[in-house]
């Protein structure tokens, strides 16, 4: 896998790197690859790390999920019950759980990149 957290671990602690990769794979594997990619792109854009996804051809469910994902980096305490219910309506409860984990991890990965965690870890 790629990403700053795994890269820093891979260089220093192979066992933890493997377990982190397995956790991320399980989380992302519970959603469609297309949604995972869109969430990562949308969250990265909030952090100023690239362009957000083109949503013009996306269905309502996906647009609702992306609007929610964009709130995670800086507005997580302001997300309302209605916003959460809208995502759960489209993804179901198990899907919402996976989506919450994937979105929060996407945010953390961006932040780890912004402090250049691999460089700090000697990579």
């Amino acid at each position, binding site marked *: 896998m790629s990403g700053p957290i795994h890269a820093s671990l891979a260089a220093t602690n192979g066992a933890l790197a493997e377990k982190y990769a397995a*956790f991320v794979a399980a989380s992302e594997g519970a959603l469609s690859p297309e949604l995972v990619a869109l969430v990562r792109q949308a969250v990265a854009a909030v952090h100023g790390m690239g362009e957000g996804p083109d949503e013009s051809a996306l269905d309502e469910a996906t647009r609702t999920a992306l609007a929610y994902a964009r709130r995670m980096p800086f507005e997580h305490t302001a997300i309302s019950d209605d916003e959460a219910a809208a995502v759960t309506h489209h993804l179901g409860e198990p899907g*919402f759980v996976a989506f*919450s*984990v994937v979105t929060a991890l996407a945010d*953390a990965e961006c*932040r*780890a990149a912004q402090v250049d965690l691999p460089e700090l870890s000697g990579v």
Partner: protein
Amino acid sequence: MSTIPRVSSAIAGEPAHFGSVLAHQPEIAARFFELYGAFWGSDVLAARIKEVARMRNARVTECGFCRNVRFDKALGEGLVEEVVDDITDGYETSDKLTETEKAVLKFTDALIHDPELLNGDARTALQQHLTPQQIAELGLGVSLFLALAKALITMGLEPEQMDRTVLPTPAVLEAAE
């Protein structure tokens, strides 16, 4: 911030909490607890250092559950409440936190709040106090603390009220190895 669960428990008879909600996704739960147990079980970085970072994250992300939990291993390494009380804004002037812990707190703030905080001096201090392997482990920990706090909050799993609670430090179960 909601204190009403937005996801039901997936375990019959149990209220909605992090574990019972994560049980909707058994594979994610299994991999997470393996990772989290291995992270806390590793002695590359002292449990006290990890707990200092976790407490800072709890306060900045406003995670009430995280803020009220204490892991026993860090307690055994001297992270008493008088020290925890200093993990707040202005920690730089604390005489209870070590210089290593202050460098860790600056890194934590940079990762969870503002990357600009890890300026030249703060970066140098972190690398003086921690080895690359320790920084990698700290980076994993802070990232997990942040992600889990946000997932917990956004799933509505914040307790309405909670007393300070000392819990066994997460560990990899023998059966899971």
